[in-house]
């Protein structure tokens, strides 16, 4: 039994969903996503029992490309994030009607397939293929099922597509250069290849361009807010919950260990860039009128902090970053879902048209508030564990980074509570707001349960990821 099983399930699921037709598509997609989750849990057990669940098969001989999937703790953690969020995301769409539903749900599963592949791939070119493959479904999802003016949407989505694709091309060039040197795309060969400091810098920057656009790190973020706003909520969740973690994960998996000298030399610049993103994103979020855009900028701020932590090159920084990636994945999916729940009732994302929901819908208010609090990293939520570790790691590099990055706890509270007040509080809204349905409630409760459970007991995840992070750090520090 190995991890390729998950990929197969997701891929078959995508085809099956497409062929069962519009009526059953959503249910079949949910079934396959849950099957992938179930199998992942079984695999996790095998992994924890010490079994090797990685795969390596020769694929193309000239150039030498292998079908290699490496399942270490870190990759498994990201795999679990993907397969746990996918059913939640699919289930969250159950209240909506989509035209051509079979394609819609098939694309979701296909995207989960590509993202899972990206996390698992241990061969540079295979990884690159998965990385680019993930872009295609989200492009169509955002373009076809998105909302707002079609022309503007097309402009935003095409910009996103070309921008990220262009960034990734530099990564491809870097891989080809590395292949020339190493004679292989296999990750462990790439880790071993000897590069001069100058070469490393170029490789590092090429990777950086790809990742900075994907994550995004300021000032490469301009595609984000518009696409988040225009995409259907399912697409926004896929983007913010999982896809942007591909970039952060890749920093840890590929960029840092392949170009460690450059990473060490310039780490302060990249940490500063991440921290600047925290402040910039938070401040821009303060004056957003559109709920989804506000959450987009909040996301920009949070990932800035995570990115900063990855560049600390310490075990605390990497561990905090991964914990925060997972925590952020769940909370951001929950928040976008809450925005969707409001949209279903009020058909608006404009905060000024909301307000006074609390009196009508106490259950929804409580769940929304818990998500808001998790997002501002209240102790007892998973996000606090992540944020605390991240800020601690920054303080070990330079206390100023921790202070500046720490402004997120103040500014975050400011824009989130302001938003909460605008959306939920005040005089009873004249438009009625039906409380959450059972389906809506289930998704939110699952997310909240995850956030609170790991808020108090993050040990299972920490234990899972730490050994592989230490291995990667060894690679970084060996050169």
């Amino acid at each position, binding site marked *: 039994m190995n991890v390729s099983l998950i990929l197969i399930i997701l891929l078959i699921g995508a085809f099956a969903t497409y062929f069962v037709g519009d009526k059953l598509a959503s249910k079949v997609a949910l079934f396959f996503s849950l099957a992938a989750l179930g199998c992942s849990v079984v695999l996790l057990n095998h992994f924890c029992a010490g079994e090797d669940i990685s795969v390596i098969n020769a694929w193309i001989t000239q150039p030498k490309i292998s079908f290699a999937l490496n399942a270490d703790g870190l990759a498994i953690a990201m795999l679990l994030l993907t397969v746990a969020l996918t059913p939640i995301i699919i289930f969250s769409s159950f209240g909506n009607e989509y035209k051509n539903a079979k394609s819609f749900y098939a694309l979701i599963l296909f995207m989960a397939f590509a993202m899972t592949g990206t996390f698992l791939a241990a061969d540079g070119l295979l990884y690159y293929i998965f990385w680019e493959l993930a872009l295609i479904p989200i492009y169509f999802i955002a373009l076809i099922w998105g909302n707002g003016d079609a022309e503007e949407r097309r402009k935003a989505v095409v910009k996103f597509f070309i921008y990220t694709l262009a960034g990734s091309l530099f990564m491809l060039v870097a891989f080809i250069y590395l292949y020339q040197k190493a004679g292989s795309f296999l990750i462990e060969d790439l880790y071993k290849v000897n590069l001069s400091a100058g070469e490393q810098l170029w490789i590092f920057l090429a990777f950086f361009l790809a990742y900075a656009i994907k994550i995004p790190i300021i000032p490469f973020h301009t595609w984000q807010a518009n696409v988040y706003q225009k995409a259907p909520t399912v697409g926004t969740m896929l983007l913010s919950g999982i896809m942007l973690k591909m970039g952060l994960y890749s920093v840890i998996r590929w960029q840092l260990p392949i170009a460690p000298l450059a990473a060490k030399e310039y780490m302060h610049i990249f940490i500063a860039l991440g921290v600047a993103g925290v402040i910039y994103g938070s*401040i821009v979020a303060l004056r*957003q009128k559109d709920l989804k855009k506000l959450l987009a900028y909040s996301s920009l701020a949070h990932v800035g902090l995570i990115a900063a932590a990855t560049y600390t090159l310490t075990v605390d920084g990497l561990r905090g970053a991964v914990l925060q990636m997972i925590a952020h994945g769940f909370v951001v999916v929950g928040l976008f879902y809450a925005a969707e729940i409001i949209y279903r009732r009020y058909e608006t994302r404009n905060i000024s048209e909301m307000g006074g929901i609390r009196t009508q819908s106490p259950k929804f208010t409580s769940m929304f508030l818990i998500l808001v*609090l998790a997002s501002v990293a209240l102790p007892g939520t998973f996000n606090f564990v992540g944020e605390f570790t991240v800020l601690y790691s920054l303080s070990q590099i330079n206390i100023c980074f921790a202070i500046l990055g720490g402004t997120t706890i103040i500014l975050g509270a400011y824009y989130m509570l302001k938003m909460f*007040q605008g959306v939920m509080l005040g005089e009873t809204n004249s438009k009625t707001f039906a409380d959450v349905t059972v389906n809506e409630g289930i998704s939110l409760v699952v997310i909240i349960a995850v956030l609170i459970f790991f808020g108090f007991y993050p040990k299972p995840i920490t234990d899972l990821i730490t050994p592989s992070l230490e291995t990667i750090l060894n690679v970084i520090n060996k050169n």
Partner: protein
Amino acid sequence: MEMDTNLALVLVLSPFLGFLINVFFGKSLGKTVSGIIGTVAVAVSFVVTLILFNQITSTGKAIQVTLFDWIQISNLHIDLGFLLDQLSVLWLLFVTGIGSLIHLYSISYMHDDENMHKFFAYLNLFVFFMITLVIGSNLLVLFIGWEGVGLCSYLLIGFWHKNQDYNDAAKKAFIMNRIGDLGLLIGMFIIGSMFSTLDYATLKTAIAGATNLNLPLLSLAALCLFIGACGKSAQIPLYTWLPDAMAGPTPVSALIHAATMVTAGIFMVTRLNFVFDLAPDVQTVIAIVGAVTSLVAATIGLVQTDIKKVLAYSTVSQLGLMFLALGFGAYEVAVFHVITHAFFKACLFLGSGSVIHGLHGEQDMRKMGGLRKAMPITFWTMLISSLAISGVPFFSGFFSKDEILMTAFHHSIPLYVIGSIASIMTAFYMFRLMFLTFFKEFRGTEEQKHHLHESDGLITFPLMILAVLATFGGLISLPGNSWLNEYMAPLFTKVAGEEHHLGTTEYTLMGVAVLGGLIGILIAYIKYFKQDNVPESDENITGLTKVLYNKYYVDEIYDAIFVRSINGLSKFFRDYVETGLSAVVFGLGKVTNELAFQGKKLQNGSIGLYLFAFVLGLCAIISYIFLAQ
């Protein structure tokens, strides 16, 4: 050991269970039942506290309970664990004791509110977090409680959430507290990296055993921690949220914003006394901030007309006095005042709640008066508490305040003078409140006058208990024979306080303090009883009074400096920077497009042009080859 773990779990989980029951079943259980469940949940914690207190006093040994690993950082292992020692159990006594009384009071006070079950849920949740804050065995568990009580404070200030002004007040409280919390976090980071632990007991040993301590860095940590304390305990410059917090229901003001939560800063400094003792400069800062806060808040309290606002500024001022004591390393003195203050200030707030309840929501003292006869129990209990806060012998506040001033006198005369002036003002504004509220003729509407009545037993019973405590609370630490100092002695590295020998100086100081208090009361008597003055209506307030009435315009200043500038910046970023960056990306696309377009022109099918380019290229290659040789 097993037994202790169970006790600790009951202690902390009982209010949490109350919270869960009220959240999920409160509405269907009905108001009274939900109130009783809430009250019993806290009362159970109180009983457990009594058992623990008994155990601690008899064995003298602290109880350490470790539940499980919480957060792992390379050189830091942070457990979820509890420390039950003299300090935490003492704090628990009044948190759960006064907490129970205030829950009981709320059953009657909140009975007309449609969301009473939610009120009790939040109140229970608050007690849960407050207990966590107090019994945490390390700084990070304290931080769970610290932020948790902040959350409950947010929920309860904005309890009447239809009113956006209240929501603003709630938000302001949360955000200002978070400024302090960042300080606390940074303080933790520094301590964590210096000593590889955040656990109190381990930290104490590490500091005691350390050679070559980096004292400047430790001082920085202490300063950061103090910033955290400033936020939670409403000290300058982070105090402006507390008066606004009065938007919450009055029992909340009594429990959270007077007796318990706002003392968390003092708790934390006392808990880490061994850190602060090594940072004398920071201690000086604490003393100065405390003294100045006590004076500034007292001056504002002089002219407020809202009964709860007077009490709120009084709380800020009294907290300032506690920090004054902390700044001199007189932790036990500060703790003593925390306790007596909890008694009389809770009583005063609950009393004011009784008045507000009786007047159907009126809080303006200009529209009160003459309530003495209609509300005798409220009157007497509040009078006792006012005497206590004014430092009249031999009420509880007399002993605690006197010790603070005496300590100040021994260390710094200017700070002693500031503290004394603040105390005189306290006596004045408290009796101003008493005279305006309870004496002379009633100034409200006929309608209200008709309905004047004493509150029911659930309200008056807690008042009476608190009044008794406010009267006799001073007995726990009599000058020269202090049970409290002896009890707390194991906590402090140095000899507990310099026991004041009661000499001439001490008696003189005591006399001066008492005289000051009496003068304050006398001025209030002349102005508001003899001369029958009533504060002017808002538009007629002028001059210095207006400045004080408007709280030195600090809110406006903060608004102009911080809130507006950050919002302006946000607007600038949103409208210009974002658009600019976006234009750059599109620009790159356009440039590519343009290049392609120009390139396309070359491919126009004209053989002549192609031939020309071919020849040009050939020439270039040939000349390159030749030149290269």
